[in-house]
Every structure is written in C-alpha cells, then in structure tokens.
C-alpha cells in the first residue's frame, strides 16, 4: 500500500502483472496516446491464450482479426520490453496456468491481470484479482491501482470428502449455496481441514471460481503444500533465498481472533459430485438431484431467473440430469486443465473408449502441461479412448476462438461459466468436475462418477 486517499481508495502497489492479447491492446494504445512508457516492464509477463487456435499453432492464425490481435501483443511486448510467452514458446499457455507452474506466482504478492479468473493465484496466499483494460493501463503507467478495501468472508470446510468428490465439486457446491452474487464486494478466504488437504492444483480450481459468486478474489493461507509446489520451479527463489522466503511466507495466515464480515461453515461430507443446470454458476445441483420445482423456489425473482435459464437450456423443472445425452465433453480451461486434472481423467478412462455419440475435446492448460502429458503417456490413453487432444489455450471455455459448441447442443464442461452463449451462440453448458466429464465421455450421458469408479 503506497498511500490512502482520505475518504477514497488506497494506492495498491502491484508486484506481478499478467497480460494477454484480448484485454491489453487498448491499454497500450492509451499509453501511447499519453506519450507514456511502461513503468516497470520487468514485472509484467505476457502470453497468448484467449484468442488462439488449439490446432496447428505452428501455422499463421487463419482468422484475420485474431491474428492481428496476437500480432499486436507481440509488437507491443517488443516495443515496451515485456517478456512474452507467445505461441510456439515452451512456456505458453493459459495465463492462470503458467503463472503458478513457472513459479512466478508466490505467496504475499499482489497480482493482477485483465481477466476475472486472476483469483486463481489466490491459492498461493496472494492478493490476486481481475481488472479492466483502463486498470491495465494504470498498472502499465504506474505499477499501482486505486482500490477500496473489500469486505472479508471466510468459508470453512471441515471433514473428509466423499468418494468421487473433487475440488470443482466443492466450489460448485459453495456457489449453489450462496448464489452467483453471494460474495460480491468480498474477498474470500477458504479454510478448514478439507481445504488444507487439497493439492495446489485443487486449491487453484477453488480460488479460480471465486469470481463466479461475485468475489473479486479468493485465497488460501500458504502452507507446506504451497512451499513444496513452488520449490524448484523456474522463477522460484533458489537455495538460501528460498529458505528465507519460506520463513516470510509462513507469517501469511489469518490471526486466530480475526473477525470476518461473513463466515460460512460447510461439512465436507455433505458435498456430492455437482453439475449445473442453468445459465449462471449458482444454478447447480448434486448429480443425482432434481432440478428444483418452481413451487419450491420462494423468491419470485429467483424463480424468474430459473425459468428463463431452463428455457434456454431446454430443461424442465423437477427433471433429473443423470442419463441425459450430451453431445460434447470439454476438458480444459483455467479451472481444470492442469496436470492433476488430466491425470484424474486418464485414470477414469484408461483402457476404455469414449461413447460413439459424444465428441470429447481435451485441452492441456499450457505447453508444460502438454509436455507432462506426453512424458507420462497420458496422450496415448486419451487418443486410444478417442479423445481429441488439442494445443494449449482457453479453447471452448469462452466462444471466442475457433473452438465452439454448436447452438442447442449440450456440453459437459470443466470450465467455469455456463452463461447463455458462453461456449458459442446458443450452446448449452453443464459445468462439472473433470471426473464427471470423464464419466460422460465414456457413457455419452450425464453420469454419476461413483457408478464408474470402484
């Protein structure tokens, strides 16, 4: 914190700024117009992920506008001396996958990016949040942002997770409880034994979707799991530096007597594999549950929202989703495209074939993840099962690049948003975990993973 304006925001210093091709060009243009330089180019890392094809990345991008956008990023990074992990670079990938895996993301940092899923980095005990393009320009110009202090919420999850339940189910469960706006205005700390027992990848999935309940950021106190993950990574501190840093990082926890504006307690045992049926991530149910009957929804506006969502989704109140055919399975996105996600999918499908009625697209989150997939032989498992393995990028998460779901068709997706048209105009998204996605890939219908795994 550089300073605080009386009756106004504070000036927050930004340690790391990630940028990508879609939300940065107008910020560079603004800078140019003002005749400014980038103030701290060495604290910025760039990649191309949102608007890139996920096949033939070695060839020029076919779509003119997309190519132009990616080329502008290259040009801007060159002009302003910013490190770029662009297409073809061994570190390229989804911005929220590469930051952690390269060891750039470290506890205690302030991190921003022109992308709402920047909350992902909070898994390392960072203050990380998404910003708009004007704010990207502010960070370019001054390495600072004006921010007001958010309210604080803690979500405690205690206990052991059930079989077939993974971190994606935890966060979908939370959002279904508190709604898509339940944490707006807050930063959320996730705590409790069920959270502490999660791997870093699993923690990232949870923090990633903080924004889907409105929270700009979500964070988890760093611990040995965090330090073990960071140790030895490319840009992580080394040797004595690392030991000294770990000592600092160990101080980053919430005081025992800290007061929160809101606190929530959830028993891990109550969480089941989850799936969404509506057009915001809060409209989720346990995989075997019924879509609510409208007579059970008390709030009139909530009822209106659900009716509109069901109409778009082509679903009925009171319906069960299990057994419903789906045409597409998408495994990828900044929520679930890390090596652990892909290992979990491989374990479910190993030696099996996908259903003939379903297209399965699996998109590693980064070049590094893709390399690991090959080294571990997971690619063979995927291709023998009939999955289409793509190259790293945001892919079918956002209906921007070439990867889209056709109108009216259902897709079980490991991504983060089921908004109308999110995966392509008219596309119908069912959000779920990588395990549930893998189960649907095998059966071609919405399936309870617990029926497949022993």
């Amino acid at each position: 914190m550089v300073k605080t304006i009386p009756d106004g925001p504070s000036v927050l210093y930004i340690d790391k700024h990630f940028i990508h091709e879609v939300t940065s060009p107008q910020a560079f243009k603004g800078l140019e117009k003002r005749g400014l330089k980038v103030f701290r180019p060495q604290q910025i890392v760039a990649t191309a992920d949102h608007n890139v094809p996920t096949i033939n990345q070695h060839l020029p991008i076919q779509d003119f506008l997309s190519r132009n956008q990616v080329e502008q990023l290259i040009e801007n990074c060159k002009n302003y001396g910013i490190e770029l992990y662009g297409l073809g670079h061994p570190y390229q990938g989804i911005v929220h996958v590469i930051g952690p895996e390269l060891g750039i993301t470290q506890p205690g940092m302030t991190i921003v990016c022109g992308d709402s899923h920047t909350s992902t980095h909070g898994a390392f005990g960072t203050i990380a949040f998404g910003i708009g393009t004007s704010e990207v320009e502010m960070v370019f110009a001054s390495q600072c942002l004006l921010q007001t202090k958010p309210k604080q919420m803690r979500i405690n999850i205690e206990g052991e997770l059930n079989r077939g339940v993974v971190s994606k189910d935890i966060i979908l469960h939370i959002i279904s409880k508190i709604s898509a706006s339940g944490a707006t205005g807050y930063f959320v700390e996730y705590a409790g034994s069920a959270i502490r027992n999660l791997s870093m990848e699993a923690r990232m999935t949870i923090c990633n979707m903080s924004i889907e309940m409105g929270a700009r950021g979500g964070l988890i106190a760093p611990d040995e799991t965090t330090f073990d993950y960071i140790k030895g990574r490319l840009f992580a501190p080394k040797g004595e530096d690392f030991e000294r840093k770990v000592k600092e990082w160990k101080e980053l926890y919430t005081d025992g007597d800290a007061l929160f504006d809101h606190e929530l307690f959830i028993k891990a045992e109550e969480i089941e594999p989850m799936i969404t049926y509506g057009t915001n991530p809060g409209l989720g149910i346990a995989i075997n549950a019924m879509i609510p009957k409208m007579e059970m929804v008390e709030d009139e506006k909530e009822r209106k929202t659900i009716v509109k969502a069901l109409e778009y989704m082509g679903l009925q109140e009171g319906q069960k989703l299990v057994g419903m055919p789906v045409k597409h399975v998408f495994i990828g996105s900044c929520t679930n495209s890390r090596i652990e996600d892909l290992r979990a999918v491989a374990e479910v499908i190993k030696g099996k074939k996908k259903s003939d009625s379903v297209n399965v697209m699996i998109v590693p989150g980064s070049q590094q993840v893709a390399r690991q997939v090959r080294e571990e032989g997971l690619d063979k498992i995927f291709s023998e099962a009939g999955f289409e393995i793509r190259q790293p990028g945001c892919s079918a998460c956002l209906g921007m690049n070439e990867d889209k779901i056709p109108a009216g068709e259902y897709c079980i997706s490991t991504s983060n948003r089921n908004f109308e048209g999110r995966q392509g105009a008219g596309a119908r998204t069912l959000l779920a975990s990588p395990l549930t996605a893998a189960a649907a890939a095998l059966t071609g219908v919405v399936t309870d993973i617990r029926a497949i795994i022993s």
Partner: protein
Amino acid sequence: MKAFKKITSQFIPIPVENIDTDQIIPARFLKATTREGFGKNLFRDWRFYNDDEQQPKEEFILNDSSYSGEILVAGKNFGCGSSREHAAWALEDFGFRVVVSSFFADIFRNNALNNGVLPVQVTEEFLEKIFSLDKNDTLTIDLENQEIIIDKTGETEKFGISQYKKECLINGYDDIDYLLSLKQEIEEFELSRK
C-alpha cells in the same frame, strides 16, 4: 473521459437479474484492438436471431423504438462474470450514461466508472418502482447531490459513490493522471521494500 454532473432522461428497463458481461458483449466481438464501435454489438444475441441484423428479436426492448434514453435500468447483480471492459465501452458507445440496478458486480462497477458511465445502486423497492413506471416517464440522476429522482412523483433515493470517484466524474478526470502524480512516492515505496 466525458464529465458527468446531472442528467434527466427516459430509461430502458431490462428487468433481468444476473446480466453477465458475456450477454452485454459476447466474446466473439472482443477481437478488436480499439475501444470504439462496440455499441452495435451491445446485447447482440438478445437483439438478433442467428447473429443476423436482418432478424431482430422484436420482443427485446432495444429493438422497440418506443423506448429510448441514456439510462439503462436492470435487475440485481448487473455486469457479473468476465472482466471485459468492452461491456462498459459497448454501453457507452450505444449511448448510455447511467446504469441503475440494485446491485453491481465489482469489476463492472470500476470499468463503468473509468469510462464515464455512472453505476447507480438503488434499493430493490426503488428498482421495482422504476420498473413499474410508464415508458415516457423520466428519471433524473444528480451526481452532485448523489440522488436519483423519479420525476413524475418526485420520489428520491440517495446513492453511494466514493468522494474521489465523484470528483473524477464531475471533472472528467481519470485515475492515471492521479497515479502519475504519485511517481516519487511509488519509487520511494519500491525502495523501502528492497
């Protein structure tokens, strides 16, 4: 940034909750590298069938020429989802200076303010009153006094905004000017942490 003091205008009501920025401007229109021209794609998939301007969805209010005005009034949790500032650019380019809702998503709120579009947060009750008005009725938004007024009845509600942002909007200043003025303090801060 355009300065904002006070406006009186008819309004366009969209009584839908959780309007996310993917609806305001779908991702396929984010390939542009300038800030201009997003208005024609505002609410694109709610306005047209099959992405075709020749096939307007007649029932959608932006296609109803009897509604007009610089004020958009929408349900709770407006602007949730993606951080795309293109949503604010699209609203501004279409001609909206104010969005009224009972609740705004945080990132959208900042993006709007950074583009001279004023988010006015009102109570659910006040929002319902606005939704029940006639299409020819007008609203007045007075930033100086932080008031929204239903002109026909004179009913008024106060709305919140930080004094800093209010000054910025009234004068058309943006944050960068202010941040640049702090350069020395920022450099001192950097040194203090080394």
